């Protein structure tokens, strides 16, 4: 069951013009009669639209019902998909969705500190909770696929890498001020190269073929 409180669940959901334009493009990708395949992109659109309109990017049930209507499928089939993927929030979240990776590589590299810093900076006690100011929700996630630069803190769509306690606190403070720091490695690492710069292929030079 979705633990949506009655106040949180809006009475009505309709796709706005921006979403509708995207829907038209998405539906055109699938052969006639296979529109149900578009359920994932439409759930994503609904979540983003909610983020735009209310500051909380989640998919309320009315939005799932609307998607079922648009795609001519049974609502329960949309509920199944939306609840299967953890990327869809079926309950309201804060403006900044802090997704902390705590899987082994990140954990070995200090994800516990990231979690502690998030707690300290936001006042959130446990997973899936939203801070009193409504800005932050903290979620525990499994491997985000960025282990080379572990630990990872994903804020909404962006990866902040090579995190530790102080960097996390600084990041959250900046977010509170309304700044959006540049995503990527926070230790100055070049992409996912070794810390301090590349250590292999340093002497090779490429000359254009004659």
């Amino acid at each position, binding site marked *: *069951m979705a633990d949506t409180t009655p106040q949180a669940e809006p009475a009505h959901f309709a796709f706005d013009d921006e979403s509708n334009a995207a829907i038209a493009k998405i539906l055109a990708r699938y052969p006639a009669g296979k529109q149900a395949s578009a359920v994932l992109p439409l759930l994503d659109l609904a979540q983003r639209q909610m983020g735009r309109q209310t500051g909380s990017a989640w998919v309320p049930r009315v939005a799932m019902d609307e998607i079922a209507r648009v795609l001519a499928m049974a609502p*329960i089939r949309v509920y199944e998909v939306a*609840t299967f993927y953890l990327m869809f929030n079926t309950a309201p979240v804060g403006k900044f969705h802090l997704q902390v990776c705590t899987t082994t590589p990140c954990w070995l590299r200090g994800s516990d500190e990231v979690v502690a810093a998030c707690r300290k900076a936001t006042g959130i006690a446990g997973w899936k909770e939203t801070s009193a100011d409504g800005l932050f929700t903290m979620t525990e996630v499994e491997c985000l696929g960025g282990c080379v630069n572990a630990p990872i803190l994903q804020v909404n769509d962006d990866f902040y890498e090579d995190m530790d306690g102080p960097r996390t606190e600084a990041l959250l403070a900046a977010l509170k001020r309304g700044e959006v720091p540049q995503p990527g490695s926070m230790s100055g690492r070049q992409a996912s190269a070794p810390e301090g710069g590349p250590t292999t292929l340093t002497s090779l030079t490429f000359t254009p073929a004659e």
Partner: protein
Amino acid sequence: MAKVTVDGIEVEVPNGSNVLQACEAAGKEVPRFCYHERLSVAGNCRMCLVEIEKAPPKPFASCAYPVADGMVVHTDSEMVRKARRGVMEFLLINHPLDCPICDQGGECDLQDQAVGYGGDHSRYAENKRAVKDKNLGPLVKTVMTRCIHCTRCIRFSTEIAGVSEMGATARGESMEVGTYVEKALTSELSGNLIDICPVGALTSKPYAFVARPWELKKTDSVDVLDAVGASIRVDARGGEVLRILPRLNEDVNEEWLADKSRFAVDGLKRRRLDSCWVRRDGKLAPATWPEAFAAIAAKLAGLDGGRIGAIAGDLCDAESMAALKDLMGALGSANLDCRQDGAALDASRRDFYCFNTSIAGIEEADALLIVGANPRREAPLVNARIRKRGLAGAFPVAAIGTPADLTYPVTWLGDSPAALAEPAVRDMLKAAKRPMMIVGQGALARADGAAVLAACWALAAECGLLGAEWHGFNVLHTAASRVGALDLGFLPGPGGRDLAGMMGGGVDVLWLLGADEFDTSRIGADTFVVYQGHHGDRGAARADVILPGAAYTEKQGTYVNTEGRVQRGALAVYPPGDAREDWTIIRAFAGSIGKVLGYDDLPALRARLEQANPVFARPDILPRFGCGDLTGPAGGGAPGSAAFVSPVANYYQTDPISRASPTMAECTAAHHPAAALAAE
């Protein structure tokens, strides 16, 4: 065909079968939880593991593995046993050990298989998972912690019932089976979820904690709460019917049962007539059988036969109707009618009023026109067959009537007889090789019913529904007794009055045999009414003498379903109190006034039925005929322009038994709040 050797037994199975089917063909039982032969294959429980030679050395899920020619299968090797024991151990990790308080106990697949493959103790010391129970409405009780995620219920509601309401939300450890948004299931077939759930996650809500299966006396019988005549098993303890389950009958109900037929049982205990009543000074007072008979005899004394009439109700067995008809004949009356709804049924030929294609025959049809019927509400099991045929593809369905969700795609062509002339109707029927038409009581129980019947037949004749090998004309009945009554000619004899003619003082004595479905206020104020039946419903309220009869679970009765299939119901418990089997009441009354009906026991009465109509000689067998004679029913006049309305507005309350049932009242409140309010 593929040759497969199972445990040394060689069998041939059709290509495309799965290994599990091959094992069954060889008579080897393979345990299964998720596999069900009428549902799509999910292959998720892994209990059906077998070993296959010359395949990769691992156990295979036999339900999801196709056979190949020359395959050698072992269902009982050491590897198989070990693998199944492993699966069982995993299944039991989260399954509670609450069999002593579980209603499925004694008829639980998991319990049974655990005896064969379960360990003697658990190695799992961690916390078990607990899942919140779901509220699926008044019929299905859930204990979701017991769910083993076989997804049978999801597949049943999506595929067979045609209402996609059940699903699996979230995943992994958090996966839950349910409706997500709490709601009562809207299917008329939801009770079957209880049967297909292999564990005690879905059980019967009204039957919760009532009895254990081994305490019950089981009686095979036939259902009468609609005209389908589903095969049922009546489970009783002491003198009480506790539950009704479907029985396998491929020709009629496959293995399903509609909710009313399953859950109206509690109506059998309420509002029962268990003694005679005679109206004295305007008030009904208890009486003995001789007093009741004497009161009727006093009224009949010296009365001309033409002033006496009889109406047969919707739940009557053929035996009692035959006896009543004979009694009326002995009294010199030709005033008989069984059509309480006034349907313009033409009994001059059997195929004018039967479901000639047969229910199983629906699967051979390739186009369907529905006229004035809502099969989902009037006969859910017929509707399930139509849906099954529809899923097989290439089956256009068009309908004339009030648009409704029938669980399959329907082209609604109009709601009145005028739509019969639509070119689209003819195009669809003529393009088909085996087209069929279903005419409902909503098309016939109206002033222009005879004309509609004739027009439908004419359309059928024109569009090739009536072939030498194929009979595509079908009348869908809603009353279990109707076809039997028509077969017996329980209709006005020469010069006799029909139901309307008996109203408003048309007769002086009116014998109602379980007749409750017409407006009893139309009966003349001075008419003396005898009500013979089992429930204190509309008919009994108007009666001057009440004779307590037996309900369908309490007598040996013959019923003819809408197809014209003759079936025998059986006695599961004895009628309550003074109540008696109905034909014996009529025979005893005839004796008390010195009339001889000519039969003293059931075999003699059944011989009389056969003599009245040879169809009664062949119970259970339904010979299928083509149509040899295209001449249609008499008809008369032109069809009017009024819209067709289904006679069943509220599926859950259609007869005295379901109206007395608290469970059906709850369903009415859940699904038809307006109707429930009006009833209060």
